[in-house]
C-alpha cells in the first residue's frame, strides 16, 4: 500500500518498522501491543496486535516544515462492530507540537462501517 500512496508530492514513509517488519515493536513506544503473524501486502508477514485498550506511537522531529502530512494504517478489528454501535473504539491520533508549546491534534477513526457511510 505504501508504494501506491507515495505520490511524487509525498516523501517516503518517515516511520521505522511501520508494519512490524522486524518481528517486534522496535521503534515504537507501546502499551498492550504484541506482534503476530499476518498482515497486508505480499511482503508482509507480521502485524501489530493491540489489546482491547492499548496504544503505540512514534514521534519524529521535522527540520523542514511541510504543508501537511499524509497518515494511514491498515486496520482489522478482532470482532465486527454492530451496525447500531456508533462509538469509535480504534483510531489514529496525530499530534503536532509547535514552537511555543502549542499543539494540533487530529483523530482519524478506524471504523469498518465508515465505508458504508462514505459510500465506497
Amino acid at each position, binding site marked *: 500500500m505504501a508504494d501506491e500512496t507515495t505520490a511524487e508530492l509525498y516523501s517516503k514513509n518517515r516511520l521505522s518498522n511501520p508494519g512490524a517488519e522486524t518481528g517486534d515493536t522496535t521503534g515504537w513506544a507501546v502499551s498492550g501491543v504484541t506482534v503476530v503473524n499476518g498482515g497486508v501486502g505480499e511482503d508482509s508477514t507480521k*502485524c501489530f496486535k493491540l489489546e482491547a485498550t492499548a496504544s503505540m506511537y512514534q514521534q519524529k522531529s521535522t527540520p523542514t516544515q511541510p504543508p501537511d502530512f499524509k497518515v494511514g494504517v491498515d486496520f482489522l478489528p478482532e470482532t465486527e462492530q454492530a451496525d447500531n454501535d456508533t462509538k469509535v473504539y480504534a483510531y489514529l491520533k496525530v499530534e503536532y507540537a509547535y514552537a511555543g508549546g502549542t499543539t494540533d491534534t487530529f483523530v482519524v477513526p478506524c471504523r469498518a462501517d465508515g465505508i458504508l457511510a462514505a459510500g465506497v
Partner: protein
Amino acid sequence: MALTWISGELNALTIEWLHIEAICEVNKDIELLTVKLSGITENLTGGGYFDNYLLLKNLLNEKTTGANIIYLPVPETSGEIEIPVFGSIVEIAEIVAAHIVPKFDIIGSDSDYMTLKLINKESSEVICTKTFLAGADALAYEVTDFGPANENNNAVNYGKGVSLVKEDTGGGMTLPQSVLIVEWNLG
C-alpha cells in the same frame, strides 16, 4: 479521509482489512517541532490488528528543481585523501549517482590503482565506488560513472555530510584535476 477494503492474510486466513488514510494540515505560521503518530484502541472487543502505518511528508515546499545535480572541482591528488563533497539541507537527500570528469586519462591497472568512494559520513558506509583496475579507464573530459548508488546507504539525513575518498592499492595512482558530479533527489 479515504477508506478502502484490501485483501490480506492473518493466520493463513484470507480476510479484508480496512485501509485508512487522512491528510493532516500543518499550521504554517508556527514552527513545527515534532510529529507524533499513535495507533490507539479503547475498549475494542477482542482488540484489533494494525499494519503498514504511514507518515508521509508533503514535499511541496522542498520540490524546487526536481532532480538535483552538483558539480564539484577536485584538485589533482597523489596519495590517499578524504574531502567533504556534500551536505544535506533537506530532511533526507538521496544520492542516486556519481560521475567523474578528469582532465587527463585515468588508465586502469591491476597492480597499482586507486579506488574512489563516496562515503555517507553518518553511517560510514559506501554510497558508490569506482575502482580503476585494468580495463576500467576514465578518459579525459568525458563522464565516467561510479558504480550504482547503494540504496541501503544513500540516504543523507538533514545536517549530515558525504565525503569523497581516494584509496590507493599497490603504488596507487594520481587522480588528475577533475570534476565530481553528484546527482541527488529528495528522499
